């Protein structure tokens, strides 16, 4: 499941404090999703695609690379505020993402001044655990 959303803004968009990103879900994640990002992004750490290796390392199974959900969140942010409007993007990883997970991508405008908006975002598993929190500074219209 993956929700398709509005077209990508070509220029900064108007944003106000407490505006929210259209909530978006991705999942249930499969091993194929991890392998697709491994090939696209170049992260071939076997802990993300080889269950035998992951179990030997003490994990119940393979798990998703953080740069996969960071990348998904980045594209959702770009779709909200425009890919060329983003000035900074920071992600903090707080837990793993597992096969079968359904992730919810959410974002909120914390503050806006004349030129820039401060945005907070989260990636939450279906369990309610936050797998990643993020911040961004973006140009506003």
């Amino acid at each position, binding site marked *: 499941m993956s929700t398709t959303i509005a077209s990508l803004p070509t220029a900064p968009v108007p944003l106000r404090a407490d505006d929210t990103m259209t909530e978006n879900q991705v999942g249930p994640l499969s091993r194929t999703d991890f392998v697709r990002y491994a090939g696209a992004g170049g992260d071939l750490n076997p802990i993300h695609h080889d269950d035998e290796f992951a179990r030997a390392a003490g994990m119940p199974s393979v798990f998703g690379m953080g740069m996969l959900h960071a990348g*998904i969140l980045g594209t959702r942010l770009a779709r909200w505020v425009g890919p060329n409007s983003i000035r900074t993007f920071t992600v903090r990883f707080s837990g793993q993402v597992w096969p079968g997970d359904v992730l919810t991508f959410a974002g909120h405008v914390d503050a806006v001044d004349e030129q820039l908006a401060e945005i907070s975002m989260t990636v939450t598993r279906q369990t309610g655990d936050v797998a990643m929190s993020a911040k961004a500074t973006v140009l506003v219209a």
Partner: protein
Amino acid sequence: MIDPSIKGQELDSVSFPIDRSKLVELARAFHDDDATWYDIAAATEAGFSELPVPPTVSALVDHWRPGGALSTATAIGADLARILHGEASWEYHAPVRVGDELTATSSVSDVVTREGKRGGTMTMVMIETRFTRTDGTLVVVRNDTLIETGAPA
């Protein structure tokens, strides 16, 4: 085990292209099939003068590191069984464009050690990677925090 004296050490410098065939792979990996991300006709139609790129596009450099995404952890002497990616951040200075040849230069910007909650010493290593065009224009600065958790006693 990471030696804290690596602070300030230069790591690698890698050049790599931004090409459309990787952009389509990234778009699909990110569950966003909009052709605006990889088809110049669709991007033009949408009002872009260049193909837009996702905010994490600079990760493509990992394909050009001989040891892949793990090569930085290896280069700093981390125990790969205990290394975690804590944080990543990007500052955008100029657009990344299809056709650009970027050079990524990495260095260890800081090393912090502290006693871990479960015993052993936890080491946090900050890596700064500067991405420049061939004319020297700085386009992206990426900072990563890698955490080596304490070794079990």
